[in-house]
Structure formats: structure tokens, C-alpha cells
């Protein structure tokens, strides 16, 4: 379990040291250098993760050639295919080949001889659409609920938001899915229970996105609403917020103009760590709703022991998560830079 339930708001301060009061050109150069270092760091982490995935798949018994062999195939055929797939070469050599081809957009060849890029080109955008919509819905819901609750600390809204978020954030996505599927689809027939695929590989209708997105959003919105509420509570005690309140500004204005800006870093970090949960949950929700995304590809690839496909999926999701974490870093650096 990655994000939500594991103390995610632990501050990481590495990227948050902007140079103070340097001349403008030098400051720009330093900022560019800093950005480059942060980017390189994130890329390096991704590379280490991919190496670990390669090693994990290699260390386990069986390999792609035997996992994809047809019934009645002789041992010699399997050995020939193993040679064809390059499985007789040492793992680090294949990993280096794969990594050096990565920057050109080449994700290698699967055990069944297809290009991994082709294999992922249709499902990956679908999963991104599902996860992205859920991310936007999560952020909007969490911000709205968190701010609403923060307007009257200890009031009925605050307590209701606190309790409901506590209930929803622990629910696995597939349980939420069942809770939605039965009333909204099977009993009333309002929404389609199964995703049908249009000729271009995308879901045939937007109504097929509603339930998967809701199933992903409900737990994550609960978690993020708590982070928003907590960050706003921390800001409420800050001197400039108390000053604004003492100046007689309306609570709404104090909240939106004075407390919220300072709360952005914590909110961004929380939302960024939700990305992994959203993408992971998407894989599960996809199987339940038969959604044409990475989940199906991945299930097949893992049972085939198809290292390039698995590494490709991990690379894609890892890149997305790195990008979102990078955005959170930028938001934190900007906020802290504006108010040193």
C-alpha cells in the first residue's frame, strides 16, 4: 500500500532550497541547474526501479519462452525461441539494451514478438483518461470538502466530512465498485455495467467512465479531503492568517486568499502520492468493468513472464508518477520561495 495510508505527508525538503537574493541572470541559471538536478534524480530513481523489476522477473522460476510455448512444442523449439528472444544472454546485457533503446521511445519486443510500444499504445491512453479524470475529480472534491469543513472548525459540516472521509478512505476500490454497480447498473439499469470498446480502442461512451471514475475517486477524495483540512488547520494559526482575520476580512476571503496559498505544498504532496493509488486502483477497477486499459495487458504479461511488457507498463506508470511528484516539488519550491 503506497500512498494514503502510510504517513505520506512527511515533508521532503531536498528540492526546496531556492537561492536567496542573487542577481537575476545568475538566479535563472541556478534555477535551471536545480531543475536539471531534480529531473536527473527522478530519472535515476525510475531507472533503479526498472532494474529491480528486471531482476525480480529474472530471479523467479520459468521464463517467457516456456510460458508462451504452445501445446506439444518440443524442447528444441522452445530453446530456439529462447535464442530468438535473446533470453540466453545475461540479464544485465538485456537490461542495458532495453535501457539504451528507451530514450528513442522503443520499449522492446514482447515474448509473442509484438512491439511493446504498439501493445501499450491503445490501453495506456485509456488508463490515463480513467486515472486523470479520477485525479481531477479527487482534487476538486477534496478541495471543496476540505475548505467547506475549514470554514467552521468543529461545526457539523466539519464533523460530517471528518467521519465520512474516515469511512471512505479505507475502502478498497473493488468494494466501492460493487456498491455502485448493484444499485446504479444491475437494479436500475441507469449506467452500463460493462465497458464496450469503440473501433478506435477507446470506451464507446462516456457513461461507461462514470462508475470506474467514481470507484477510484471515493477513497482518494476521502484521504485528500483530510489532508486539505489538516493543512488549512495548520495555516489557520500562522501570523499572517490571524492578522487577516483580525483585520475583519470575511472568513471566506481569509480562507481562500490567505490560508489556502500556504497550504498548497501539503495539498500538492498529498495529491501526488494519490497518483500511484489511482493508477494501481485503475488496474483493479478495469478488470471489474472490463475497461480496455493497462490492467488487461498487465495480467496477460505477468502470466507470460514477459519482462519487456511488464517493464514497459512500470516505466509508463512510473513516468506519470514521477511527473506528478515533480509538479508537487515545483509547487513546494515556488510557495516556499515566495515566502522564505
Amino acid at each position, binding site marked *: 500500500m*503506497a500512498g494514503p495510508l502510510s*504517513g*505520506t505527508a*512527511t515533508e521532503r525538503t531536498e528540492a526546496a532550497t531556492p537561492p536567496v537574493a542573487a542577481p537575476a541572470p545568475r538566479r535563472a541559471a541556478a534555477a535551471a541547474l536545480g531543475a536539471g538536478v531534480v529531473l536527473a534524480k527522478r530519472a535515476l530513481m525510475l531507472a533503479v526501479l526498472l532494474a529491480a523489476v528486471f531482476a525480480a522477473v529474472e530471479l523467479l522460476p520459468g521464463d517467457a519462452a516456456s510460458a508462451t510455448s504452445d501445446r506439444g512444442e518440443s524442447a528444441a523449439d522452445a530453446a530456439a525461441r529462447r535464442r530468438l528472444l535473446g533470453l540466453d544472454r545475461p540479464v544485465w546485457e538485456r537490461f542495458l539494451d532495453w535501457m539504451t533503446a528507451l530514450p528513442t521511445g522503443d520499449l522492446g519486443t514482447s515474448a509473442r514478438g509484438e512491439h511493446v510500444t504498439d501493445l501499450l499504445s491503445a490501453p495506456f491512453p485509456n488508463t490515463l483518461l480513467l486515472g486523470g479524470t479520477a485525479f481531477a475529480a479527487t482534487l476538486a472534491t477534496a478541495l471543496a470538502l476540505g475548505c467547506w469543513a475549514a470554514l467552521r472548525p468543529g461545526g457539523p459540516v466539519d464533523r460530517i466530512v471528518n467521519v465520512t472521509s*474516515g469511512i471512505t478512505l*479505507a*475502502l*478498497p476500490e473493488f468494494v466501492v465498485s460493487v456498491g455502485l454497480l448493484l444499485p446504479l447498473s444491475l437494479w436500475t439499469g441507469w449506467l452500463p455495467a460493462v465497458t464496450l470498446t469503440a473501433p478506435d480502442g477507446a470506451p464507446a461512451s462516456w457513461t461507461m467512465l462514470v462508475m470506474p471514475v467514481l470507484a477510484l475517486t471515493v477513497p482518494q477524495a476521502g484521504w485528500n479531503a483530510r489532508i486539505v483540512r489538516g493543512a488549512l488547520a495548520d495555516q489557520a494559526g500562522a501570523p499572517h492568517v490571524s492578522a487577516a482575520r483580525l483585520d475583519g476580512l470575511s472568513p471566506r476571503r481569509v480562507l481562500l486568499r490567505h490560508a489556502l496559498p500556504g497550504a498548497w505544498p501539503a495539498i500538492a504532496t498529498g495529491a501526488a502520492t494519490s497518483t500511484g493509488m489511482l493508477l494501481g486502483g485503475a*488496474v483493479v477497477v478495469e478488470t471489474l468493468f472490463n475497461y480496455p486499459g493497462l490492467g488487461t495487458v498487465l495480467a496477460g504479461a505477468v502470466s507470460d513472464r514477459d519482462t519487456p511488457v511488464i517493464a514497459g507498463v512500470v516505466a509508463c506508470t512510473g513516468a506519470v508518477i514521477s511527473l506528478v511528484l515533480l509538479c508537487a516539488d515545483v509547487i513546494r519550491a515556488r510557495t516556499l520561495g515566495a515566502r522564505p
Partner: protein
Amino acid sequence: MSSAALTPARAPRARARVLLAVAPGALLTLLALTGPLFAPRPMDEPVTAPYAPPGTAALLGGDQLGRDVLSRMLHGGSALIGSALAVAVTVTAVAAVLGCFAVLSPTVGRLVERGADIAILLPPVLGMMLLALAWPGGGRFAVMAAALALGVPYAVRVVASAAAPVAASGFVEAAAAGGERLWHLALREVLPNLRATVLALFGLRFVAAVYVISMAGFLQLGPRPPAADWALMIRENAPGALLNPWAVVAPSLAIGLLAVSVNLAADALTPAARRAAAGT
């Protein structure tokens, strides 16, 4: 910790409230662990028609093979909760020890920090699929191993952030200057001061483990079909949800209730340590 020590007058009431919040989770866990004793029917034999609606033969109806849903429900929780508990205990113990070492030794600290940074790039479900399906026959143990590997990096980070101020305090420095060895400093000087954090961490890791292990059951990675597992039951009986909704609703409710009540308990354990430790 310190806040609890500073307000002794309110301690009994706070304790009662914590007990009240922990009770549902503990009760449900106890019920699930002793469930097989109450099962009215055999778990793995057909007693009624496939997807039969609730009736006298089976109180919650039949599943896809006509087996008694109620009996399977009563059998299905113990393994899920048992493995989640085992994972939570192990993750918490490993993290507690590693976290203490991490603040005392900069090398371990850097390793832990980097490990957690890298682990965040791998969604838990992906990591679990990798480990569980790539270790054929690993079944429940493969899932537990995956849950362990995925849980430890974050848990260590939580312990380390709580342990940092303790490690910098005078008595630890005095002990270090006195020539005590690293393991003595970690286990005898630092760890005993982190009881609240470790307790809260255990609650959160239990929630997380229930999530990961039920997810694996749903994806059919852990327990194999003849086994009764709540998450697996949902997956197996989904096609017949219209004929006998209880075959799907009952296990969903059970997992939902378990997740929520365990989370409420974890929440109740957290406040004292929250400010200092988790930073949320």
C-alpha cells in the same frame, strides 16, 4: 506522547474513547477468526442450486456452485485477517528497528530515504501482481511477501521521522558518548520512547495490509478458487449478482466493515502521536 503526559486529568476519558473506537474492529476480527466454528453447512459442498436465492437450505443463498454463502462467509475471513495481522506485525517490527538505526546511522538513513523514494513509483497493485504471479504456487505467501516489501519503506520513514528528535536528545548522546554500541542505542535508548508512534503505525499498517491482501484476493493472485476468501467470493460470484445479490453483497459488506472499523481503530490510536510522528 508528551501531550498525553502533560494532561493526566483527561487521560481516563481519552482511554475510554480509544477503547470504544477499537472495539468494533477487535470484535469483527474475533468473529472472523472464530467464524468457522459457527458455519451451519460444509464450506465446499453444494447444498442448493447455483445462485439460489436465500431460503431455508442456505440463509444467504448459494454461490456459483450452489455452495452455502453464509458458511463460506464465516470461513472466508480468518485467512484474510490472519495474514493481514501477520503482515502488519512484521512490517511494524521491521520498520521500528530499521527506523531507529536510520536516525543513528547516516548511511542507513540515506538508504531508507532513497528506498522509499523509489518504492513510491511502483503502485502497490503493480508490485503485487509482479511478485504474486511471478512466484507461481506462492499463493498467499507470495502476496504476504509483496505486502511486506511494499509496506516497509514507508513505515521506516514514519518511524525515522518520529525517532529523529529522540536520537538528538541528551540521554542518547550521553549513551553514545559512553561508548554504547549502535544496536543498544537503537533498541534500548530510542525505541522505548516511540511506543505511541509504533502503536499508531501498527494500526495504519493493518489497514494497508487488509487493502493489499483483499486486492490480491480479488485479482485471484493469492488464494486459489476452492478456498473461501471474501475478496475471491466477490470476483467469483459477480456474474450471478442479479440472481443472488447476497453472494456478492455479503462479502463486500464484510470487507468494507473490516476496512472501516480497523481504520477507525487506527485513527483513535493515532492522535497522541500524530503531530509528532506521522506529520499529517
